[in-house]
């Protein structure tokens, strides 16, 4: 996995789309959830995905994660056309999703949660706890997560920010190239939001492509490099954070130009 080793690598990375969707469409019965959406994430960059409820953010993410199959559209990973037909395909490419509910088992400790379903074993069936604990420590340290008392404490005892950190660490452990975070700061207080935003920033600095879905424009302007705005299942605009304002984004979310009037789309 590329890590920021020098200026040259960085500038090269900044030009490469690690994950790209072209013309993605998805229909649920009478509802056109996505229509002809282009979307790209670059390495070392945080891409924010914003839009009102029902704009198609979740559908897009679930399409990338292999939970839904797209009706039309092409997916490119590192420039090569790929087909994602299930969560396993996505995981093999290195695409990991951190869902809003985090999917942690409260009764298990941090190590057990990070390795859930992919436990390391010494002999068949026999857990290799020492090696898993070490790897968990290393991953958390590489993300500068230092607020945990012990990786052997149960997740139930963690704060919201710590839980988010564990969920993110769980996602980046597996040679991940793209990490998608669904509303990572939704339930957090000020200090914990700060910690999570720093964490998101560090993921990008380590050369991953990061996608953040959020309703909180303040957070997005703090953490993202680019913003893709969805409205009624269509991509209305893409902005560089440095060249736009919150007002402009709000306008795009609520009244951005559509390619076509909903209900009158061409069949795809």
């Amino acid at each position, binding site marked *: 996995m590329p890590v920021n080793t020098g200026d040259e690598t960085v500038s090269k990375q900044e030009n490469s789309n690690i994950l790209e969707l072209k013309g993605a469409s998805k229909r649920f019965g009478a509802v056109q959830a996505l229509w002809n959406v282009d979307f790209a994430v670059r390495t070392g960059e945080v891409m924010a995905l914003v839009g009102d409820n029902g704009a198609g953010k979740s559908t897009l993410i679930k399409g990338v994660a292999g939970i839904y199959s797209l009706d039309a559209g092409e997916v490119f990973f590192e420039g090569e056309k790929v087909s994602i037909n299930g969560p396993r395909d996505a995981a093999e490419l290195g695409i990991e999703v951190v869902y809003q509910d985090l999917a942690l088992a409260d009764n298990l400790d941090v190590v057990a949660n990070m390795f*859930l379903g992919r436990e390391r074993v010494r002999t068949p*069936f026999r857990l290799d706890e020492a090696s898993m604990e070490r790897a968990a420590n290393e991953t958390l340290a*590489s993300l500068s*997560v230092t607020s*945990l008392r012990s990786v052997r404490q149960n997740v139930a005892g963690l704060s919201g920010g710590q839980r988010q950190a564990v969920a993110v660490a769980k996602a980046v452990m597996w040679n991940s190239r793209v990490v998608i975070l669904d509303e990572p700061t939704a339930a957090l207080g000020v200090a914990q939001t700060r910690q999570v935003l720093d964490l998101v920033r560090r993921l990008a600095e380590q050369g991953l492509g990061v996608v953040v879905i959020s309703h909180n424009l303040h957070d997005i302007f703090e953490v993202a490099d680019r913003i893709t705005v969805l409205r009624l299942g269509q991509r209305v605009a893409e902005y560089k954070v440095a060249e736009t304002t919150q007002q402009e984004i709000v306008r795009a979310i609520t009244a951005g130009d559509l390619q076509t009037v909903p209900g009158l789309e061409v069949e795809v």
Partner: protein
Amino acid sequence: MSGAATPAPPPPVTARPSNPFSVEAAKNYWQNIRSGDLGPLPIILGLILIALIFQSLNENFLTSRNLLNLVVQMAGITTIAIGVVFVLLLGEIDLSISYTSAVSAVLMTELLLDDFPWWAAIGIALIAAAGIGLVIGVIVTKFKVPSFVVTLAGFLGLNGVVLLLIGSGGTVVIQDDVVIGIANEFLADVWGWVIAVVGVGAYAISQILLHRRRKAAGVSHKAPLLIGLQVVGLAALAAITVSLFNDDRGFPVVGLIVLVLLIALTWVADRTTFGRHVYAVGGNEEAARRAGINTDMIKIKVFMLSSALAGAGGIILASRLRSVDTAAGGGSLLLLSIAAAVIGGTSLFGGRGRVIHAFYGALIIVGVENGMGLLGLSAGVRFVVTALVLLAAVVVDALSRRGRMISGRA
């Protein structure tokens, strides 16, 4: 490891042995207790209390003869309770275990009458029990019927099967010496000591290997002094137990069987991927499913395991009585088995509890029964007292859960 972790700064938790005698460790322990993480503390206090009460009321309670009787009495319930712990860890319930145990025992007895060798009779009976678990597991997972209802049907239906298998005779006597020996044979004195030495030695070696491995991996590990104290403590406990047994009839065969089952299945629950996945399904089924765990398969396997253990428990109970009759699996067997698991600290809501604690729970339940038997109390009094013990255990659990909620560890 992942590239994300390549430029790894030193891990936050380094190879620092945790010193169990430091002020910090004492504070942590107190903190855990205050926040409702009681561990086996209430059980141990309860056991001491029970021993004191019954010994003061009847001086025969703490004799080697009675303690040996206690071990034989509790063997069946302990075996069944181990299976109950697994089912409860999933957040499910199995009400049919008592009659599964009876079906297994009756089947074994009938096969012995048909001149099957003991090993074949026991093997077929255990497979039949596991088959009952398979059916329960498939119905619960594929048809999404709550396990309470499925196993309630099992409770009734299997009771019927017991009556049908036994027929009009009423009682069937077991005549196979090996089967009777399970609960009625005692090992020569020397074997008791062999078991103690092998057991303590194996524990010491496994702890030393674990310590080395964790130290080599650079993760937290126990202080050597603590390991030494634990080994010495276990050795003392083993020596006292064996000399008590040898004072009377010797180490009971059934005690050895239950000991092996307890250790093996505690290992399965704590140290294998299967055990880890059982806890995960009980803690957050959705998280387990998204992690790629086949949750249905885990549930089916657990129902099969618990039913097979119920079958083994039934065979132990039949061996002790040297016969089976139409009352097999009835009475308070079901409730005492579940009570043993719950008193042992297993949560009814899934995900919390340890297999080895089923032993403590059974010890309390059967200890109280045994003590009241010595005092010659009526069945009515015994039920009421047992109920109060169960209630006390559940209330302690609920209070500790509230403590965890308040301290954010729910």
